[in-house]
């Protein structure tokens, strides 16, 4: 058995990783703590209280926008992941062809334009369609968020494809009759880490997309970020800390569930 190459051989890596996690969680801990603050304040501790959770639960608008945000993020990032996987398969590990750069630029375009510009452009187009068709449902937001999530899902999947060992697939191509089977049984399982990374990025990006939503939404389609944006100019209530904490709790539940399911299977 060759000696295991572990991270202990790269001194400092573990420490830096630890530092990263600490930095990522420090503000989160602060907001969780202050969500239980009796005080109206973000900075002055006034004793333990659940009043902001009660306030959040009592507030119909807060409930609606939270659920809408989660739903939208789930749908948009799922769609974006599927489309991005297909697009990554189409553009990676093929000999260079004409138009490849254009496709690449198209896919990454939502990244390159600030949200406010995409927002204004979408407002004009979407409003026109709304007037013409009379349809003012969530479809527009789903479409806009999906488009915005595609580059975030695409890049990790592509990175994954590029570093993947091809010999297995080639062996499979020799054994199996169809490309589809080779894809189903070899490529796809190997791609999973990239797909998971892409989906998670898409999900959190959709949860944070604010300016585009602001311009595309119709009556009664506020999401959590646009609701927050509306508060920015006035006072942001600790209710928002409570909501954020609930979102964290939800994400922890999902992680735990995921962990239980995968460890059982393994």
């Amino acid at each position: 058995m060759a000696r295991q190459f572990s991270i202990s051989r790269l001194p400092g890596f573990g420490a830096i990783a630890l530092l990263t996690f600490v930095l990522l969680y420090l503000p989160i801990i602060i907001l969780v703590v202050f969500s239980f603050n009796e005080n109206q304040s973000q900075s002055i501790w006034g004793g333990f209280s659940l009043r902001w959770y009660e306030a959040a639960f009592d507030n119909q608008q807060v409930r609606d926008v939270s659920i809408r945000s989660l739903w939208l993020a789930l749908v948009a990032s799922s769609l974006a992941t599927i489309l991005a996987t297909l697009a990554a398969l189409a553009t990676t590990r093929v000999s260079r062809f004409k138009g490849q750069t254009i496709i690449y630029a198209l896919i990454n375009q939502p990244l390159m334009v600030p949200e406010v510009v995409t927002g204004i452009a979408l407002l004009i187009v979407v409003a026109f369609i709304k007037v013409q068709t009379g349809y003012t449902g969530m479809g527009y937001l789903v479409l806009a968020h999906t488009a915005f999530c595609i580059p975030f899902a695409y890049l990790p999947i592509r990175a994954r494809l590029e570093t993947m060992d091809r010999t297995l697939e080639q062996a499979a191509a020799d054994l199996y009759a169809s490309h589809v089977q080779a894809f189903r049984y070899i490529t796809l399982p190997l791609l999973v880490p990239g797909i998971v990374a892409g989906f998670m990025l898409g999900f959190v990006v959709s949860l944070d997309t604010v300016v585009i939503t602001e311009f595309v939404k119709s009556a009664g389609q506020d999401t959590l970020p646009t609701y927050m944006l509306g508060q920015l100019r006035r006072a942001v209530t600790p209710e928002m800390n409570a909501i954020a904490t609930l979102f964290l709790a939800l994400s922890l539940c999902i992680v735990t569930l995921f962990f239980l399911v995968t460890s059982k299977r393994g």
Partner: protein
Amino acid sequence: MKRTIALGTAALLASTSLASAEGVVNLYNWGNYTSPEMLEKFTAETGITVNVTDFDSNDTALARVRQGGHGFDIVVPTHSYLETWINEGLLMPLDKSIVVNHGNIAPEWTDVPFDPGREYSVPWQWGTTGITVDTAVYDGNINTADIVFNPPEELKGKINVVPEMSDVMAIAIYHAGGESCTEDMEVMRKVRDTLVAAKPHWKAMDYSTVENFASGDFSAGIGWNGATMRARFQRDTVAYGYPETGFPVWMDNAAVLADAQNPENAMKFINFILEPENAAMLSNFARYANGVAESDEFLSEDMQGAPELTIPEDLVSAGKFSEACPQAVNDLQSQIWTELLQ
């Protein structure tokens, strides 16, 4: 899981014309500005449900509604934008057979220049933009814009100016001896020089004033009266000053959109907020004054006679309705603004 998403998708996509449903009114308003209790009361009295959708700036709201296909019934623009809304035919005249409380509008808010005779709009909340000071740090005259433009030593580096271009420009122009939207280049040069010289002494240009004044991170600045009052509730040395040279007065107004899908319900809502008791509910939530007569007695105790809500007699004349400046003037101001923020 998949099926749940599919069902949810179908349901949400199907709920297309929320706006045309029975017993609904769609309000398009500033965020965190509508009292939920008041909405509940409205629904209990009329059976009409209110859907609130937020905007974060007058410009966004105007752009959004101009394009059409929005589905809103009521909008709450600031007075300086109201004329544009009216002139472009975006609003519907008030139906006075439903808005029978029209007479409840306080006399001084009835014949206003931006909507003479209140044909289209009714008051929602009004306030002023002035000087917020922590008197524990500074004990001089607070009714002067010099606190921000020519700060004394003890306030340097502790000043915050709300990033509201037209308000800040107006205060600076008044301070330089001009009229709002002036095209007098000598005044504007003075304005620019004052701002550029003052900026290094500012700590921030931020909206989150309540928190930062309460925590002591800010000790002076340009801000709104209602926000200053909120800060004072948390730190009682915070005071509000009205610059003697001039300060902007503003009012947000509720109006019904010309292409509203529920115009009748919208008119009922407009009528409802003109009841003194309901107007006071709005004020108690948003912490600004309303323009409805006789509503003071319903105000919460901490707001009755609050110095932030009552302009001192001798300074009333210094308060001016800020106008929306013509394009050329706005352009001039935004160039100075860009220079300031580069």
